[in-house]
């Protein structure tokens, strides 16, 4: 029988209701058509989770997936893809984390895990090669994510066990609870942690002693070496390596893309206080890296002075600094580190958590709510003491935290229509630290993302601060200068579509967007070569593009079945009507409609409904999707 290398060709299916564990063969046609990672995720959802499924019910499923490059020497191949129907957006949801979990799962002998059903009492899944057990997690329930990982490791007296788990936020079904993956890294978005919590699944622990074999070892090794070298020598790698994503704080503030006071503006006046320069000087105590990563953006931060002295955190990202900092107008970096640590302990998505708090702080400023509605907390901008209290309350759904745990979109419904203007979300998911008014491509990408507001599904970086060298390499010299101008919309729909297809492949391989999208070192050609030599698939750039497009279209089809149409492909009015006062974005809004029309055209989606056209789906081999969509009453 035909078999691909690069995979373990086995996967685990766990039914929590029946307490049944089975090991099955990874379907060959899934590998051919969906590659792995989030590709396997959407395929499973499509086949097994009807679109009308209530995300926190027994019927929803959770997929944890690796890809053909996981657990090899390919640069930055340590990421884990997690997919489910999202309790935050009620559509397709996925999240993706760095760390070491996916490689360990591959070494244990599995390509992915499907979790279905619902346990009656807290359990955790333990995988050690052929030994797969569901064990009681009564003693872990209520513990924070760091404690959970530590207790499991102590139980087996093995520090090399890799754990992914939820904290109290996931247990309490906070709609934007995350899954923490191997100590401080987070599969944050879409509320994947709440899905785990709803199933009473506290953690998955894995230890593997096996190996990953590739099709043409020497050729694969040579391509990986070449790829690693391309990443290492890229001009942007050094900065990323030294400062990590916080380097963006200064950069994005400079171009007016750094959301401040709930997107009132795209810059703050205290960038020196919360930027990467200060972080590096005062707080970075160690540099770390995820599995096989030559960039190493991960850092270990320690606060050594002041009221937060002794607080440590790992991987404090640009996004978290914005969400827990500037979005709430909080200029106290020590408190941002503390808040980040708390979110990691409780298992909360920092972007959504900060988004929710920024939302009510603005409502307070506009006198649309009173502190009384929020347990009397002082909701003035930048009050980090309030923020610390609120984060705790959200995680445990205590007091007003119960309301805040529902996310911006639902909260706005509860607080009345006047608050809608300030609810910065797309399809129910809070908008990350990327103000589209300063970068049009990002404005579009937030809208066309299949998991609601998000920067990583399309991750356009070419016009961020402008990378002409890479733009020429990827899209041709004739596209300059517009393509690298963040305020221009020309070529941006093409860039976003290409980015989405490429990111779909990245999330299915599963590698990191660093090294691929930013620094923009590896592209279709390199990935196609790596996947080919790893797996033995008959694959080239063209075929890989088709896989990316197929995955993205199937995700879109799932959203369509969930009720998403063109009317939902939009941004909050603020970003469409209110001109940005900041830097290069000054005077600009997101020019969405024009970009969207062109985007649908490029995608082969219907312009009035936003539904993928039948011939497009058939051309991608998604006949089944074409039929299901056809049957919808429109």
């Amino acid at each position: 029988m035909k078999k691909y290398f690069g995979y373990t060709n086995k996967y685990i299916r766990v039914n929590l209701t029946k307490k049944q564990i089975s090991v099955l063969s990874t379907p060959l046609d899934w590998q051919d058509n969906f590659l792995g990672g989030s590709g396997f995720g959407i395929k499973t959802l499509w086949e097994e989770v009807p679109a009308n499924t209530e995300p926190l019910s027994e019927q929803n499923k959770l997929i944890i997936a690796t890809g053909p490059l996981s657990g090899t020497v390919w640069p930055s191949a340590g990421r884990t893809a997690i997919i489910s129907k999202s309790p935050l957006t009620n559509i397709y949801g996925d999240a993706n984390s760095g760390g070491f979990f996916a490689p360990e799962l591959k070494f244990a002998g599995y390509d992915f895990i499907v979790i279905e059903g619902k346990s009656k009492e807290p359990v955790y899944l333990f995988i050690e090669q052929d030994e797969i057990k569901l064990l009681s997690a009564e003693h872990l329930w209520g513990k924070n994510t760091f404690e959970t990982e530590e207790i499991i490791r102590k139980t087996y007296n093995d520090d090399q066990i890799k754990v992914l788990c939820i904290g109290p936020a996931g247990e309490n079904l906070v709609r934007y609870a995350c899954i923490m993956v191997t100590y401080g890294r987070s599969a944050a978005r879409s509320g994947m942690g709440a899905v785990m919590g709803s199933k009473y699944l506290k953690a998955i622990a894995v230890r593997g002693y096996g190996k990953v074999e590739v099709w043409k070892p020497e050729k694969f090794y040579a391509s990986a070496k070449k790829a690693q070298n391309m990443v290492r020598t890229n001009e942007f790698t050094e900065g990323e390596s030294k400062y990590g994503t916080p380097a963006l704080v200064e950069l994005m503030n400079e171009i007016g893309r750094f959301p401040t006071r709930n997107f009132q503006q795209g810059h703050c006046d205290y960038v020196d206080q919360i930027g990467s320069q200060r972080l590096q000087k005062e707080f970075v105590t160690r540099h770390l890296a995820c599995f096989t990563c030559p960039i190493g953006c991960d850092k270990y931060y320690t606060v050594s002075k002041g009221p937060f002295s002794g607080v440590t955190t790992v991987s404090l990202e640009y996004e978290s600094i914005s969400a827990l900092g500037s979005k709430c107008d909080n200029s106290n970096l020590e408190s941002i580190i503390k808040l980040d640590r708390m979110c990691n302990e409780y298992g909360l998505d920092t972007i959504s958590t900060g988004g929710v708090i920024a939302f009510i702080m603005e409502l307070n400023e506009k006198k649309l709510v009173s502190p009384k509605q929020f347990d009397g907390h002082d909701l003035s901008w930048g009050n980090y003491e309030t923020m610390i209290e609120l984060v705790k309350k959200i995680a445990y759904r205590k007091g007003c935290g119960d309301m805040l745990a529902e996310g911006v979109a639902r909260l706005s419904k509860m607080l009345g229509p006047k608050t809608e203007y300030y609810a910065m979300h797309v399809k129910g998911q809070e908008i990350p630290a990327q103000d589209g008014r300063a970068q049009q491509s990002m404005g579009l990408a937030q809208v066309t993302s299949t998991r609601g507001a998000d920067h990583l599904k399309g991750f356009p970086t070419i016009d961020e601060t402008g990378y002409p060298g890479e733009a020429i390499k990827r899209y041709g010299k004739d596209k300059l200068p517009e393509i690298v101008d963040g305020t221009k919309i020309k070529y941006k729909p093409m860039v976003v579509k290409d980015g989405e297809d490429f990111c779909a492949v990245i999330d299915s391989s599963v590698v990191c967007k660093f090294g691929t999208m930013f620094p923009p070192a590896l592209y279709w050609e390199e990935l196609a070569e790596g996947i080919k030599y790893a797996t033995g698939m008959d694959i080239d750039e063209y075929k890989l593009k088709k896989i990316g497009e197929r995955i993205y279209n199937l995700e879109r089809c799932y959203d369509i079945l969930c009720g998403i149409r063109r009317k939902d492909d939009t941004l909050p009015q603020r970003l469409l009507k209110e001109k940005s006062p900041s830097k290069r974005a000054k005077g600009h809004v997101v020019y969405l409609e024009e970009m969207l029309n062109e985007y649908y055209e490029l995608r082969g989606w219907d312009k009035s409904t936003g539904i993928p056209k039948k011939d497009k789906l058939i051309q991608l081999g998604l006949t089944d999707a074409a039929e299901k969509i056809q049957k919808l009453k429109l």
Partner: protein
Amino acid sequence: MYLYIDFEKCRGCRTCEMVCSFRWDKSFSPTRSAIVVFKNEKEGKNFPIVCQQCSKPLCMEVCLNGAITKDEKKGVVIHDVEKCLGCKMCVLSCPFGGIGYVAELGVARKCDLCQTYSLEPAVAQCEKMCPYQAIKVLKEEEISSYVKKEIYNRIQKLGKHYETLIR
């Protein structure tokens, strides 16, 4: 020769494990690597563990079948897999955990700085691929001065504190 590891530069990415297991078996597996990075994630620390290439190797002493020898000229402790009985005495005797055991093959495995790897010239593959230059192969005569220089650099980083030390 000696595989010097700068613990401060090591970020714990484990590329060396992948490179090393590939060098031996043409596949990727941490348990088949002669170098292993232990991680203390709580404190953000990484501890790569590998053979120290001892001058009087205990592993060589305890080997019942003469599978371990010392190449005195190069200063490398070499393990002959053909002679290995898989008794694990070397694994147990090494105070540094420098020798591993490959369950699938039933033999010990240790770092020989790629001296028996069929590539010409024999260069330690992990040194070449470590993204953070945390690994450096030192010749016998370099070891002392190199390590001293590294430690000198580290102390200097202490800045003012260092000045008070030397005053």
